[in-house]
């Protein structure tokens, strides 16, 4: 079994069989992670470079851990600013990667399409670890893995994504991936943070979070960037919390089981009440564990290796 593409650039257009395969493989790796020595020689001799043009401790650590568990050689490259400011173009970066004979590139970048650009210029397999506001496929895969574990299937599951939809790569990847897997998706947030013509996605859009809660089995709560308020997308964090913040009171009022996810890091008390993150509603820690397993699966499947151990 193998994936239909050499790269993982996003989940839009990725066939169901591929997502299925990644999730099934991730489940196998999760078992590996529970062994006393949670390490397999699968990627021994392979070189993975982690290119992080944007700070992201969580995602970087998750990928690094996945690579180590697979016995890959890893090279980390972190740059706090975009390549423009550095004076080196992304094309130069691609040339350097080519010269280094790298097998897999993991790239996180503040500009949408940077992984796509790279994939046109390097022979290595490219994994998108988040590109601008576009996609964050491994995040959505770990979200789907977590939900599949919790509910047994994604088919028919109702997932409401709450928050800054316009600027969220997590929202897009979840939307594309979940719908491919037969789940229903709804979007919820202030009108100013729902992107133009989002209705063409053909999903319910709620401006009222209580309606979204009433509709959903799962809430995927996005991190709200404080700069959005500064730029006038909503009047204050206080009002955001009042209208769209997920609180225990809101969940209890719904009177039904509901699962809370969050891609992290959480602004406690703004998009999510402080105690909810650690409550019975939350699967946030499962998300973190599954993140490593999913990334191992993607690395392994793209590497072209044929056996896990």
């Amino acid at each position, binding site marked *: 079994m193998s994936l239909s593409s050499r790269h993982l650039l996003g989940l839009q257009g990725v066939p169901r069989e591929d997502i299925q395969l990644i999730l099934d493989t991730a489940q196998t790796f999760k078992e590996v992670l529970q062994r006393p020595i949670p390490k397999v020689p699968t990627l021994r001799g392979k070189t993975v470079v982690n290119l992080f043009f944007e700070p992201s401790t969580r995602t970087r650590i998750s990928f690094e851990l996945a690579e180590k568990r697979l016995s890959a050689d890893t090279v980390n490259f972190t740059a706090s600013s975009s390549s*423009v400011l550095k004076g080196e173009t992304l*094309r130069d970066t691609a040339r350097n990667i080519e010269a280094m004979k790298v097998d897999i590139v993991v790239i996180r970048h503040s500009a949408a399409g940077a992984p796509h650009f790279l994939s046109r210029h390097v022979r290595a397999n490219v994994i998108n670890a988040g590109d*601008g506001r*576009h996609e964050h496929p491994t995040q959505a895969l770990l979200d789907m893995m977590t939900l599949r574990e919790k509910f047994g299937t994604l088919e028919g599951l109702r997932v409401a994504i709450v928050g800054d939809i316009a600027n969220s790569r997590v929202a897009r990847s979840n939307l594309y991936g979940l719908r491919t897997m037969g789940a229903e998706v709804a979007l919820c947030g202030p009108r100013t943070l729902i992107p133009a013509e989002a209705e063409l996605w053909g999903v319910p859009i709620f401006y009222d979070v209580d309606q979204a809660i009433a509709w959903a089995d799962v809430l995927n709560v996005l991190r709200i960037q404080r700069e959005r308020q500064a730029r006038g997308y909503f009047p204050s964090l206080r009002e955001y919390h009042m209208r769209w913040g997920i609180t225990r009171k809101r969940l209890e009022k719904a009177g039904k089981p509901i699962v809370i996810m969050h891609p992290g890091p959480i602004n406690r008390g703004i998009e999510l009440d402080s105690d909810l993150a650690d409550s019975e509603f939350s699967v946030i820690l499962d998300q973190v564990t599954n993140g490593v397993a999913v990334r191992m699966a993607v690395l392994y499947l793209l590497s072209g290796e044929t056996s896990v151990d």
Partner: protein
Amino acid sequence: MNEPQQAKRVLIKGGTLLDPKRRSAEQVDIVIENGRIATIGRIEEASFSGDVVDARGHVVCPGLLDLHVHLREPGQEDKETIATGCQAAMAGGFTAVCSMPNTDPPADNRSVIEFIRERAAGRLVTVYPIAAITKGRQGEEISEMADLVEAGAVAFSDDGSSVKNTAVLRRALEYSSMFDVPVIEHCEDPYLDEGGVMNEGFVATELGLPGMPRIAEEIIVQRDLSVLGYVGGRLHIAHVSTRGSVELIRRAKEKGLAVTAEVTPHHLALTDEEMRRFDSNFKMNPPLRTAEDVQALIEGLRDGTIDAIASDHAPHCVHEKDELELEYAPFGVIGLETTLGVVLRVLVQEHSFPLAEVLDKLSYQPARIIRKEETLTIREGAQANLTVFAPEERWRVDANRFFSKGRNTPFRDWELPGRVRAVFNNGLWWRREA
């Protein structure tokens, strides 16, 4: 490349003379002597001594004129120079270009206009400089328009942005009206487009790219038309890209307002779907819009709402355009060498426009806007300002073979009809080798 030669004695043999002015097509021979049209009629090749252009199956038409070209000199000679821009124009069939004033320093005073004219002197391609509407293109004080017109400016524009302050735009239209020179507006509300990368709509939403809404253009078109209606003058709308803008201009023309408009080949040929490739060669301002807008632009050209086709040739260096992330790359694409081919393909082949009509929008119509129609006259005794092209000859766009310094074309690898074989102007002529 081969340089233009003195047009001492040249015979254009057997071409189809297509003069949009006369709307007639006839197969004739044309003799050019010392840069002037000596004879239009039947000439026996055997009895002729001089250079011969075998133009059988070719179209001979007035030299094309491009209203909207960024020659980048002075100040950004790494992107383009007046010399390379003129070569690109020539290779694309243009014998005249209007240079946009967003140079460094900007063309907001007589010395820059004179510099451009000096650099352009003696070339086959005529450069008509456009001067800035406001000093430093800052949108605050109008430039010395009388002096600039006297120095040779044919129009005013702060292209790259609109005149933000409506009162300043009003003064510019009032003041320039004394010289019968148009104000060319790049219509864009800077607040609505702030941070934008592509057309706002579903494609941008799917890609997570910040949008530039169509109303950002239309609001300024509407504002400018209101001001024009109030104070008069002449207004030319650069690179119209939306259906709403076409409708606004159409209504203004019906009311008799002195407004003209241009459209670019890329806005006629491409839509925002191209952005799915995340390729910065499709990033320009105004951005590529939707199929519905493209349709409206074509209708606007057909019914005369849009007067002219202009390239908005905007060269950039490879390292600052092709090699950058889409979100960080600058706006702009080149077009001088592909415009004729693209409009032949899109308008003539795909939308059955008469060839004469398309050539009109590339010659007489733009020339009329800057009052240079007389330079296009085709008759015995007139200066030879002619373009000869093979309408059926197909060629593949190879950015590495452009005469322009720019490689930033959205038409890479397109197969285009219409190869320019020769151009004549200013006593010179050039023919494409092989």
